[in-house]
């Protein structure tokens, strides 16, 4: 038996790999282990073996696939242009179909359903906010310690979904914002900054209420059916939007691939922009100002799904410069910080090993501020860096500079 679903890695995807091995050094798990079974080439070979019926889809296969962070650094390094991320999502969908387990079922309910239920997220958010007030996240190293990476959650929450933010400037167009599953309650400051910057640039910002979670976490984990359902809802919600702006890199990367997840998905996907690239373009075009500053050094952390999946590297640096700061490189190898969505929960040791490495790079850079365009990375960094460093989205850094500039003038 090989594959059983239509989501499985296709022959063309697997054939694209000529096993040259150039991906190996770019893979964080290969770097940690030196082990072919923990490498992109090894994972593709394992998929091909199952596809050709040379090996069973067994626990070993599950472990080989499960160890992958899905950072897609291999994809950016691949001269054969193998769509590794897609193939891995397919392999995980096969695991879901062929190796059912209670743990996975529960996890998929959380990623595919609960995250899309605003009431569930709101209740959880409230509980976390209370825990923060009681400083429970400061105690010990238990599960609550993971919350250390979170921003302080506002009580009451300030949701954006369903709202409309008209521009006061000369009108450039309408931008539809993805509110996101946890972005809205947990990272509302990022939305504030995004809305502020876009309205300043002349966009009316709308946040369609029919939208839902983008489905990235479900897709990465092999919850293909749930991911498709979520994608379909969003495709409908954003069908009329000329421009879909996303301020979480993991979500923008996934929505740009909606063509593979929903009927008519490609049309929406083509209109999705990550807020960093859009804002950097607006600055470059003169629609937004460059703010003079004292050139304080700010470290740029590249979220994998911004840098590798979307190949966006210049934009966050351009935003840092436009905000009057000097961008500082911390990791030329652009390794994953270990957050990697739910990976941080599923494989805490590996996640932490990579996170500690990234945090050390930030400390070595001698900066006080780090920007990261993805919520997972942000939490990982804040959790490991502690109070000594400020971690925020590059668009926030720019927005704060805009606001200060306004106060000054």
């Amino acid at each position, binding site marked *: 038996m090989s594959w059983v679903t239509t989501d499985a890695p296709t022959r063309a995807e697997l054939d694209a790999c000529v096993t040259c091995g150039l991906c190996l*050094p770019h893979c964080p798990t290969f770097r940690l282990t030196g082990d072919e079974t923990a490498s992109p080439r090894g994972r593709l070979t394992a998929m091909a073996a199952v596809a050709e019926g040379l*090996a069973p889809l067994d626990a*070993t296969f599950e472990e080989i696939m499960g160890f992958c962070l899905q950072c897609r650094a291999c994809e950016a390094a691949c001269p*054969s*242009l193998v769509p590794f991320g897609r193939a891995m999502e397919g392999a995980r969908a096969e695991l879901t179909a062929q190796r059912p387990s209670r743990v996975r079922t529960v996890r998929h309910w959380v990623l595919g359903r609960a995250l899309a239920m605003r009431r569930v997220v709101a209740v959880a958010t409230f509980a976390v906010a209370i825990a923060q007030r009681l400083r429970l996240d400061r105690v010990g190293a238990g599960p609550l310690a993971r919350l250390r990476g979170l921003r302080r959650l506002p009580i009451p929450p300030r949701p954006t979904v369903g709202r409309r933010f008209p521009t006061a400037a000369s009108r450039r167009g309408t931008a539809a914002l993805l509110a996101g599953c946890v972005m809205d309650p947990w990272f509302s400051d990022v939305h504030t900054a995004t809305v502020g910057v876009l309205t300043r640039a002349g966009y009316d910002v709308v946040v369609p209420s029919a939208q839902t979670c983008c489905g990235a976490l479900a897709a990465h984990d092999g919850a293909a059916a749930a991911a498709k359902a979520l994608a379909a809802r969003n495709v409908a919600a954003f069908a009329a939007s000329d421009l879909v702006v996303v301020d979480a890199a993991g979500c923008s990367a996934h929505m740009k691939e909606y063509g593979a997840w929903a009927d008519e998905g490609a049309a929406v996907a083509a209109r999705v922009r990550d807020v960093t690239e859009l804002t950097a373009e607006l600055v470059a075009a003169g629609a937004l100002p460059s703010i003079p500053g004292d050139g304080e050094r700010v470290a740029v952390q590249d979220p994998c799904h911004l840098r590798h999946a979307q190949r966006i590297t210049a934009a966050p640096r351009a935003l840092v410069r436009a905000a009057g700061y000097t961008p500082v490189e911390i990791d030329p190898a652009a390794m994953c910080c270990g957050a990697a969505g739910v990976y941080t929960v599923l494989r805490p040791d590996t996640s932490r090993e990579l996170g500690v490495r990234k945090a050390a790079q930030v400390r070595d850079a001698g900066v006080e501020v780090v920007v990261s365009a993805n919520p997972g990375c942000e939490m990982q960094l804040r959790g490991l860096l502690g109070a000594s460093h400020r971690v925020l989205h590059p668009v926030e850094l720019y927005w704060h500079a805009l606001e200060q500039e306004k106060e000054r003038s």
Partner: protein
Amino acid sequence: MSFLDALHAVVGRERVRSQPLELLLFAKDAGVRAGTAAAVVFPETPEETAACVRVAREWGVPVIPRGAGTGLAGGAVPEEPGLVVVMTRMNRIHSVDVAGRTAWVGPGVINLDLSVELGRHGLHYAPDPSSQSACTIGGNVGTNAGGPHCLAEGTTVAHILAVELVTADAEIHILGGEAPDPPGLDLRGVVVGSEGTLGLVTRILVKLTQNPPHVRTLLIAFADVAAAAKTVSDVIAAGIVPAALEMMDREMVRAVENFVHAGFPTEAAAVLLAEVTGFEDGVVAEAGTIARIADAAGANEVRVASEGAERDEWWRGRKSAFGAVAQAAPDYYLHDTVVPRTKLVDVLTDVYEIGGRYGLTMLNVFHAGDGNLHPLVAFDAREPGMLDKVEEAAKEMVRVSVEAGGSLSGEHGVGSEKRDLMPLVFDPVDLDAQARLRDAFDPDGLFNPGKVLPSGSRCADFDYVAAGAVP
């Protein structure tokens, strides 16, 4: 106690792989042929490596060393079910002597990592195989790896001062040394390029090279391949040995451009990358001479890379060429012959003729300055009869190269892939001598059996009586 138990006792359970699917992933390298791994082990010290060798010898299991698995000749492929000893975890740079320009490194250190690490001292490790971002120094030692910049700097062996070798009796030897010309036979020189057949290399003393004060990289486009090849011969004949002199034909340029988007001229029939290094005046003069020679040979365009990013992109393109072939077809087969530079035009013409006659998709990318050809056939192995056809054509290409005075391999190694072609360049006495040399290190054939030498190389009958010896 089983073989696996014995390995577990040496390195612990977590550094042994033995599940069938896991073993499958160690069955091949970056080449086309697969073998069978019986177990995989990841030692972290020379002593652990020696202990693994001892276990393998006791159980009569062959030992196959492996680095990053980027080899193209099957050097890391277990020809018979064997213990694959992966050296990637021995990846420490043990020491760097900046004044003496040497470093002791573990075999698992990645080639490019070493140069990046040395950058702050103004030094680098010169051999730069195309896979340098992934391949290990230990693997480079195994194959005596080359690379574009070996034209002026020599291949790996010229940059290895000493190796620490675990031999078949599980002893640890240091061969060579930091001081020049150590007394006695140069066993270091024999181990480099021995493709893991003489022992396992566990530490390496490398020579480091000064970073050049100036670099100038030229990209030269031609309307026909012969004019590009003629330029190569003419440059060498003019007394210039550039730091690198590389060639790609149109198909290759297009595949590479799809990946790097470096603005390569995709309409040109052939593109030369030429690089000169040194003091500014010399660099400018040599680059000028090369441009003039190219003009005279009929070049369409000569571009000079801007410092830094553009040059890096050009080289990234060149070095990802093999991988980029996958865009043309799912499989590729390439050779690594070297011909006298003066025969480049003739041999290239023949190579294209052979490809055309067999109706194969040919791409060419190679170290033109060295005469080191990589004629490459892109194909789909699932087409019935295709692999046979490709291998037949490849054999013809090798024959053409050898007849022009060339050799089988310039940098990839013989491995299993070219093993049976060895009689094209060596007679039975030569091969027997090589087999005897191997036996001196490894009399029982423990290490990487089936590599380098065709079976039957060791002829007991060569109790040699030369012509005229009998009175």
